[in-house]
């Protein structure tokens, strides 16, 4: 038993999750072996909330989001697991069972779940105007709409995301816009069909700091006004602290810890989460003191360590245990789960061990 699905946990919150990912495994078969980019990830997205997925680059965050929309690059494929999309007025559907190129899957993309990307320059085609690319998103899911209607809707969307002079910008090409405006165009495009879920994959990484803040503000206000549920992928703990309601911490394709944002920040459980938090620069830190880093680097996907994937870098690792078997996911309370032997029921003297570490 590797995982305890949250659904089996005592239900305290009344809402059913909008999106439930269960034991998702996404593999990239290569000549040299299979890269398990996502290796048993489980999480839930609650209506109207923001789920932050955080982790170092290469830990499988982006592949997770692409799995949800089944837009993996070849030769990637979903090998196991379920992705349940709950609908208010229809039956829930397991996305993992849909054919990636089929019409049901296409009907979900952009219409129910929309995606915005890290690189607003390369994520927009340089060959078509902003209006063309947004209008297309309107037209594809609305067979009744004509070009004029799509244009009106596009103008509306551009206004909504706060682009000045929308009637001029609509006929411009992406390379004529600044990075911040491009990201706003991306957001406008993703909102074209009023999706219920918006996945933002590192939406601010490529932007400068002031623009970052503006884009995050925009996402927050859109979420408030339209009741959007947001999955926010980032490696920036600061962004998580500012935006997320719930947090899932990812390491080597696995969710090692998930819980409400306050808990993650104030009472982190997993050694990896703690290490991540220690590596945030603080203005309260002693001047000229060295910023903490996490020892070592992410192992190569072909050389996945035996046992807990984090153990070679873990300060608390227990020889003979962590390097032997995979720690199960332990449900600590309704909203918190952690995958570490320190918290597994068999572990002895857990509290004193971690307390000692925290004070140190």
């Amino acid at each position, binding site marked *: 038993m590797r995982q305890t699905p949250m659904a089996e946990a005592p239900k305290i919150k009344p809402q059913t999750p909008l999106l439930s990912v269960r034991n998702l495994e996404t593999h990239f078969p290569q000549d040299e072996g299979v890269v398990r980019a996502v290796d048993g990830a489980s999480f839930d997205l609650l209506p109207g909330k923001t789920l932050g997925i955080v982790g170092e680059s290469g830990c499988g965050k982006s592949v997770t989001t692409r799995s949800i929309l089944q837009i993996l*690059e070849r030769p990637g494929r979903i090998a196991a697991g379920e992705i349940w999309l709950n609908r208010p007025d229809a039956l829930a559907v397991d996305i993992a069972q849909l054919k990636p190129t089929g019409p049901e899957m*296409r009907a979900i993309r952009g*219409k129910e779940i929309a995606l915005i990307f890290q690189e607003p320059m*390369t994520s927009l085609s*340089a060959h078509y105007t902003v209006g063309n690319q947004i209008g297309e998103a309107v037209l594809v899911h609305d067979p009744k709409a004509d070009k004029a209607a799509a244009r009106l809707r596009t103008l509306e969307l551009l206004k909504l995301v706060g682009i000045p002079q929308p009637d001029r910008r609509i006929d411009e090409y992406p390379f004529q816009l600044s990075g911040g405006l491009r990201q706003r165009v991306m957001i406008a495009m993703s909102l074209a069909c009023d999706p219920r879920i918006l996945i933002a994959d590192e939406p601010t990484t490529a932007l400068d700091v002031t623009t970052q803040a503006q884009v995050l503000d925009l996402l927050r206000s859109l979420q408030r006004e339209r009741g959007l549920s947001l999955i926010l992928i980032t490696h920036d703990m600061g962004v998580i602290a500012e935006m997320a309601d719930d947090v899932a911490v990812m390491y080597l394709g696995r969710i090692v810890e998930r819980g409400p944002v306050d808990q993650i920040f104030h009472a982190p459980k997993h050694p990896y989460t703690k290490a991540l938090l220690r590596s945030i620069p603080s203005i309260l830190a002693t001047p000229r003191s060295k910023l903490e880093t996490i020892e070592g680097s992410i192992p190569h996907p072909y050389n996945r360590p035996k046992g807990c994937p984090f153990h070679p870098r873990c300060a608390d690792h227990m020889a003979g245990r962590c390097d032997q078997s995979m720690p199960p996911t332990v449900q600590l309370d309704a909203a918190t789960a952690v995958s570490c032997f320190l918290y597994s029921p068999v572990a002895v003297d857990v509290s004193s061990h971690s307390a000692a570490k925290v004070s140190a």
Partner: protein
Amino acid sequence: MAAFIFRRFLLALATMWAISVLAFTIIQLPPGDFVDAYIARLSSTGSSVSLAEAQGMRELYGLDKPYAVQYLKWVGRVIKGDFGESMEWQRPVSEVIGDRLWITVLISFAALLVTWGLALPIGIYSAVRQYSVGDYVFTFIGFIGLAVPNFLLALIILYVSFRWFGLNVGGLFSSEYELAPWSLAKVWDLTWHLPLPALILALAGTAQLIRIMRANLLDELRKPYVVTARAKGLTETRVILKYPVRAALNPFASTLAYLFPYLVSGSIIVSLVLSLPTVGPVLLKALIAQDMYLAGAIVLLLGLLTVVGTFLSDLALMWIDPRIRHQVDQ
């Protein structure tokens, strides 16, 4: 945009100038001048020219002046459409060339269409179905196309169709139309004869273009905007055709600039093997007979053709790529 066109236009003019200098050099290169050749020709038929007459002719053609002056005079005459006399044919050069120039254009253009018509779909297929059987087959054919010079291909096809099908695939017209004036029936006849030489001429360029298209499209298929388009819910076909293919067209269009000179060049030598009525055979005969005004005129006209072709391809590139259109505006 205007600046871009202007710059390209200047380059076209410069190329034209360089070609005219080369053409003139070719006219001048053989020992002796036009009058010497003329005298030699007359004396072979029994008549003779006095020294004074020869001098008169030299002055008339400006042959006693320095090369630069001669060049300017020649250019001046050429601009007025006077390419001089062909010694070999005893007729004005423009008359000798006649329709042949247009047939050269026609064959080169047909080959261009064939090249595009084949390379575009095959290139897309090879990239989207990378490492499939079809991809390997096209890659293999492509390599053969690259390796077999088109005149050799023409020779082989000529032999094979003669040996096994008893057909003579040479020529552009059936015998009854060869000397007939232009008519609808003749055009129809031409339409039937055109595809084979066009295909032979196009093969090497097609092979090259398939490889370019395949490589570019493979690059483009990995770009994030493709994922964006997919995430919108578009069908896979539409995603590929609208976005990466459009981006891969860009370098595709820019190959036009050297594809056209290449095809015009190739048509010369293929025409010889397939006895096509282009300027090729005339140029070869003129060069061997040192009929230099004719040869120079043909080199100049072919140069003009390719310059026009290149200029048009630049305009096409500008039309395809909004970045070029707009960057130049700023």
